[in-house]
């Protein structure tokens, strides 16, 4: 079931089109990656979902119903540009933000206690925010984002400013929230974490949605029919047996063994290749090369900019 649908959203600033006919569909209980270069329009889109700004055209639907003001209580948002009141005490501030999200004071206190214990930060309650390190403040911010049990969570660059230990803690929390039924939108430049966490992605470039779908499907869509063969034996012998149906794209050493990358041309099958080389070398490993999200990202974005865009 689709949790959030964005349909043909357009947003224009005075002499700049920030979003041009952008649509996307976020399935329920998925982790959805929102990718794109800087200035592509991701933050504007996130702000539209949060009802911070309104689109000029198009609509946002939450579970088949147009999103409304009170729906912001069902959303938890951790913006990229985030901070806290420096002079305010941690507990008081968290309580304030929770109440702004529609929680009752009593309920908020209970929930905060739970989270503070979980993150082992009970001692911070009466500290002023300015006394905490940046990483500590990020933890507080994460707590205030999830405190009201939102159905939809939006994280914009959540891992920036975290050390690896805390980043991992956070990652596990995100996965746990998904398990508990939340739908999560995740905007980041860190392609490693996208591969690790996301089920679906959308790639926005120059105000337009240029790629959308399940992450595995997209990666295989961009695979180039290249295989890596680990072998023992004479590489030259191997190469000399290949006809013009094959193209060698690289050699390397892997775990003390030699490996070659071969691209299949003209609809050649994998078995054909294997039967061709088996007589000459001892094959240890054979696998298809799936492009990383990083490769896909760079490839797609570059393709678009080479085409030139009439929409800028």
């Amino acid at each position, binding site marked *: 079931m689709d949790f959030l649908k964005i349909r043909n959203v357009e947003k224009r*600033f*005075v002499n700049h089109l920030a979003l041009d006919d952008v649509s996307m569909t976020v399935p329920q209980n998925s982790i959805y990656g929102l990718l794109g270069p800087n200035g592509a329009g991701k933050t504007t889109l996130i*702000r539209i979902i*949060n*009802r*911070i*700004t*309104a689109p*000029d055209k198009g609509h946002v639907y939450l579970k088949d119903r147009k999103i409304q*003001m009170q729906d*912001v*209580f069902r*959303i938890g*948002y*951790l*913006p990229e*540009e*985030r*901070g*806290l*009141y*420096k*002079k*305010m005490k941690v507990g008081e501030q968290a309580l*304030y*933000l929770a*109440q*702004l*999200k*529609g929680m009752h004071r009593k309920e908020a206190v209970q929930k905060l206690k739970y989270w503070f214990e979980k993150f082992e930060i009970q001692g911070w309650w009466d500290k002023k925010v300015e006394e905490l390190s940046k990483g500590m403040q990020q933890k507080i*911010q994460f707590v*205030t984002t999830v405190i009201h049990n939102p159905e939809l969570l939006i994280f914009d660059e959540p891992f920036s400013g975290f050390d690896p230990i805390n980043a991992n803690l956070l990652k596990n929390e995100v996965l746990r929230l998904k398990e508990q039924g939340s739908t999560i939108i995740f905007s980041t430049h860190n392609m490693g974490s996208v591969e690790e966490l996301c089920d679906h992605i959308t790639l926005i470039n120059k105000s337009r949605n240029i790629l959308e779908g399940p992450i595995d499907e997209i990666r295989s869509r961009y695979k180039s029919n290249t295989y890596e063969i680990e072998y023992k034996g004479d590489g030259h012998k191997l190469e000399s047996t290949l006809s013009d149906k094959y193209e060698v794209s690289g050699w390397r050493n892997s775990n003390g063994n030699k490996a070659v990358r071969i691209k299949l041309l003209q609809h050649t099958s994998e078995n054909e290749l294997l039967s061709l080389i088996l007589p000459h070398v001892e094959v240890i490993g054979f696998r298809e090369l799936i492009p990383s999200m990083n490769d896909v990202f760079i490839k797609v974005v570059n393709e678009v900019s080479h085409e030139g865009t009439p929409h800028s």
Partner: protein
Amino acid sequence: MNKIKLILQREYMTRVRKKTFIVMTILGPLLFGAIVIAPAWLATLEDTKTKNIAVIDSSHLFVNRLPETESIKFTYLENKKVEDVRQNFTDSEYYALLYITHLVANTNNSVILYSDQQPSLGVKGHISSAIEKHLEQKKLRAAGIDDNILQSVKTSVNLRTIQWTESGEEKESSTELAMIVGYIGGFLIYFFIFLFGAQVMRGVIEEKTNRIVEIIVSSVKPFQLMMGKIIGIGLVGLTQFALWVLLTLMIVSGAKSFVFPELGTPKAQEVTANSIMESSGGSANAAPFSPGQAGAEQELTENLQAAQIFNALGDINFALIIGVFIFFFLGGYLLYGSLFAAIGSAVDNETDTQQFMLPITIPLILAIIVLVNGISNPQGGIAFWFSIIPLTSPIVMMARLPFGVPEWQVLLSMALLVLTFMGTTWLSGKIYRTGILMYGKKVNYRELWKWIRYRN
């Protein structure tokens, strides 16, 4: 609405608990109290110590004739020379030596006051007026004018002012009092707008530079955040103001009973009233503490004047003035508060606010100029127009009000103020909404105009 309340609460509580708020709350009334009490207190200080003045009178006209007061006493030395006294003057009990030459009746510079310190103005004034009066009397007598005639020519005019109200009543009025009330009202509104308007601006800049604003506007509308902040800080201002009034009253009444132990007698009240008037330049009445030869008459006129002032105080419609004051106080603050919020949202730090502050500062300063100059002609054209135009009306109308302003003018001014603050709030809301999420952009007026035109 619930959210505005939450925001308002936070704005209010964090500010009221600040040390600066508590310090200002205590310091303000102490300052006000000092301004009111100090002149009277200083006067009493001066006079409590008895000053014994030695007199060498070569003219023999003044022996035992100089009037003494509680604190100024004279000792007449016979057959002594100035040098005799001078030699061990410091060890003597004398405050000063008054030397009157025999030429006193004919030359100006024939009276000398010697002292080892600078004699006080009060002492100087007392002595010279006593000598002048005594000589005048002597000369008049020498010219054959009888003492009775002398008494009967003494004239003093005290102008009472009575206002005819539209309903045909007669009202005792005091121009001085009206001026004071007008000044205080106008200046308070001016300070309130600047002090707390700037706080709104700083609060907005703080939220923007802290980067908390995006988190908050994902829960509430920017307009709610802005209004919550403006109203919250406004309430802080009202609280501070109320505490000031309360504490000032406490300090003034406490100090009065300390400085004037005979508190409660009409004289003590009249003295305070007079010293208030004097310290604000309202009345040029004589010093309140000089009973003596002319003391009786003076006291009489003082009593009369005091009675008039109290009559006038009773006749100024304080309920109306306070009501209208609170209205303009809030109206003016809300109008400017939203403009201050818009400025705060448009910049990244306080130093960038200069270019936008000018259009806000100019009408406020203009209003103060009109307040100071126009108060002497409260029904004149300038005072009238500036009390109707909403940007200056809160300040100028307060100045005019104690003199009596036709009802329709007050209502028109109020209506325009309400309309204008709704307009500026709407406009500021649009700038604010865009500005708070805009970083690192040098903003000018053209840019602001674009923001106003954004649809959402």
